[in-house]
């Protein structure tokens, strides 16, 4: 399985076990469905085991795995578009709050870089530098993206709380 590279199975397993729920939350944020999020996490780590030799040690193992998770979710979204006859996930059945409708819509409408930076900051609890490593941009760019996102979301939040 090509596991003789710079990343060990034990290291991948360690990230899986310690950050499992954070990966699930990111998957849910990106896909909007708990089962698809679970599937995406399993797929991410199975892919990691099979492509460990592609890890060049240029960033942290965590960043490499978060990148892989983003790619798996992107692929799943593309697959959904191809099979568009399938109904979208019913978010009302996933047991979480149905409030914050405007906020939810605004998050979904953020440009991809801002949205991913927000998800990685608040659902994966990554630092600005770590997010930069995942997204392959400079930390300053992440800072700007997070600021833009916060300003838009704060405005929506104010409106919802005021209503």
């Amino acid at each position, binding site marked *: *399985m090509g*596991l003789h590279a710079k990343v060990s*199975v034990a290291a991948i*397993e360690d990230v*899986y*076990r310690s950050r*499992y*729920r954070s990966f*699930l*939350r990111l998957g*849910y*944020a990106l896909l909007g469905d*708990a*089962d*698809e999020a*679970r*599937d995406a996490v*399993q*797929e991410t*780590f*199975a*892919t990691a*085991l*099979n492509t460990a030799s592609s890890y060049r040690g240029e960033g942290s193992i965590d960043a490499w795995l978060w990148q892989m998770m983003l790619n798996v979710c992107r692929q799943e979204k593309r*697959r959904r578009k191809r099979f568009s006859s*399938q*109904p979208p*996930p*019913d978010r009302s*059945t*996933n*047991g*979480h*709050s149905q*409030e*914050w409708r405007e*906020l*939810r819509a605004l*998050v979904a409408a953020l440009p991809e870089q801002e949205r991913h930076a*927000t998800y990685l900051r*608040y*659902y994966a609890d990554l630092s600005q530098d770590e997010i930069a490593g995942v997204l392959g941009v400079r930390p300053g760019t992440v800072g700007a993206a997070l600021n833009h996102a*916060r300003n838009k*979301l*704060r405005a929506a*939040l104010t409106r*919802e*709380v005021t209503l």
Partner: protein
Amino acid sequence: MTDLLELALDDLIPSFADEQPDWAGVIVRSTQSASGLPRLRARHTRRTLALAFLLLLLVGSAVAFAGRVHDLFFGKPAPPIIKRAFMQQNQMRSQMRQWEKAHGHPLNSLPRVNAGRAHGVMAAKTQDGLLLLWAAPATGGGECWFVEFAADQLDHNRPTGSGSCSRAPAAPSTVRWASEWSAAHRTLTVLSGRLDTDADAVRVRLRHGAVRTIPVVDRYFLGAFAHTLGAPVRLTALDAKGHVVARSSVR
């Protein structure tokens, strides 16, 4: 960032506080990916003339049982494509053994299955067509089974479904089961399993409170429920008099 915004963002996403990681599942999935074996989850559906023939054989009985599980094909030898599915479980077992040796990680390897003796056990009628459960004996007194939607039977000329195995018989109160969801059948949760004691039915409590009862055939049970009802959280096996003979629950 205001605390309120952080809380609101947090509220958009479930906490998954009760979720447990499944590393063994990752390992199995990686061996499937590496070998080109079919994934546990169905991704595509392809209907063929051969499938249409199979449905003609089975649908008549399903209608006769008014949508209830039936055992029309109990004991019928499995077709080659299903035997291949069981043989692939043996391949997977070999790969897991190799993986264990290479990495020193003990895995809960599958027992070796006698694919030549694979046979039909039971079928359930669902909104996505018939759901079939095939079984075959395994080493050490265990059993392996394979669950598939009949309509998925020929997907790129290989079986598409999910398999599981039990090892040597355990305590009679044991219930071995798995529930599964796939993108190809996204409105359904599939439940399958095996008991180590005789029973007539299994009562299934689903996460959002609904209760369903499904029959037992040769100690196997099989059912499909609306995904919106939530995953199974408690299973209770009952004998003919309604006495509890085994039970299992998850948090």
